[in-house]
């Protein structure tokens, strides 16, 4: 098993070209999210968005489709059924794209750690750039997490999408292992 370490990429920061830096500046200041609200964590997002915490002031906002979104926000536990759909959605997003695991369930299964149908660890299947721990993480924690993500993007550290491409074999093997016979790319001909 291979865990992505964000720190391992820091030394590559200097290798970014100038337009990549500009691009990262834009991306950092305009984070559009696709919320994958399968778990209970989604309830914490409306307060994050509305007057009290107002995430729009950082240029963040929800988006309707993965094509438009930069961040895939997975708010809670994953089952084998939802995982397939999350992978599908992730692959429809445009590069550069980031994955944020939200709540304990995405980290280790949380209170569902002993369920046969729960995927315990998200980063076996998708390249998670950032985890926001908590059960639930409150809006303050969420905002804090996103602040971290913004600075990571600015520095060019949020490179999960590149990692996913580079290690696609490993990810797809894990995905297949958990989802059984179903092959992600071949979902249409299931």
């Amino acid at each position: 098993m291979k865990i992505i370490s964000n720190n391992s990429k820091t030394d590559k920061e200097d290798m970014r070209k100038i337009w990549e830096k500009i691009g990262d500046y834009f991306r950092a200041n305009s984070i559009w999210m696709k919320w994958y609200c399968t778990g209970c964590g989604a309830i914490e997002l409306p307060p994050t968005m509305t007057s009290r915490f107002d995430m729009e002031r950082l240029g963040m906002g929800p988006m309707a489709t993965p094509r438009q979104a930069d961040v895939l926000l997975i708010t809670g536990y994953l089952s084998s059924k939802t995982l397939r759909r999350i992978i599908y959605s992730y692959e429809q997003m445009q590069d550069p794209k980031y994955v944020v695991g939200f709540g304990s369930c995405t980290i280790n299964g949380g209170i569902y750690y002993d369920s046969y149908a729960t995927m315990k660890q998200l980063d076996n299947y998708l390249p998670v750039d950032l985890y926001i721990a908590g059960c639930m993480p409150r809006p303050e924690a969420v905002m804090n997490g996103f602040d971290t993500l913004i600075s990571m993007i600015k520095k060019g550290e949020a490179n999960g999408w590149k990692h996913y491409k580079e290690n696609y074999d490993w990810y797809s093997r894990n995905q297949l292992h958990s989802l059984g016979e179903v092959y992600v790319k071949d979902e249409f001909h299931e």
Partner: protein
Amino acid sequence: MNIMNFIYAFLLLVFVFLFQTSITGINRKVMARLQRRRGPKWYQQFIDIFKAMSKSSTTHGWIFDFGVIMALGGIMATTILIPIGPFKAFADVDNIFIVSYLLAVGMLGMAMSASGSGNPWASIGVSRALTNMLAYDVPFMVLIVSFIYAFKTSSLSGFAALQQGAGILGWNFFRFPLGGIVALICLQGMLGKKPFDSFIAPAEIASGPMVEYGGRHLGMLFLLHEFSTFIEVSIIVHIFFGGGATPLEFMVKYALLYTFMNIISGVFPRFKIDQAVKFYYKVPLALAFIQGLIIIFTGLGVS
């Protein structure tokens, strides 16, 4: 028509982009304040557009790309027709019918591209957008016909010139209050703002026509949106608010009107599409006919 016209036209496009995008950003701030939020930076809209353009994208075939190019091209061509105060890139092309029909090229291009993606949400959104168009355009055009009959001109600058020099009360909005109300209601529909934004409806049909766009396509559609907003508001400013004797006057009027429309949209929920059609064919159309008949038969307010 020579090379200078085209250079002017290009400058005009750049200007409109900068101007309108800033206004949009400011309006996002206004809207946030309306909702007691802090709101994004005033240049947030620029960031969003450039970010979208910086990302990778997917395409669903040549029509998906071509539609976007045609849409943006058509809308930019229409923008070139719009006079900014006294400034015009080309003479004699600001005819209201040319503007409104050329605007349709952009709409058609976008609709084509959206449907070309093969996503049903996009087609549903397009069907709603076109239905919406049938609703708001007809009362507005009825009004325009009676104006053309009264003023014997159909160019935007011609309408504007006729109102200048008589102060605020010389504006058509005050001379023809019924028509003014109709025009503002129709403008709300043209802009696709609430309560007439059912064709976007992000939570219901996944932002309708935009559902498959990402990356450069999305960035171009943002540009398109800015330009078309500019065209639509400018038409009303020219016809009902006296245009502008100087570009600055025009820009001020423009900014105020756009903000006003935005504020209205901030307090409304959303109509279903058939409710929108019913509404437009009841109130604004009736008012437009009444105003038209007043203009044609009594000439009240014309001279």
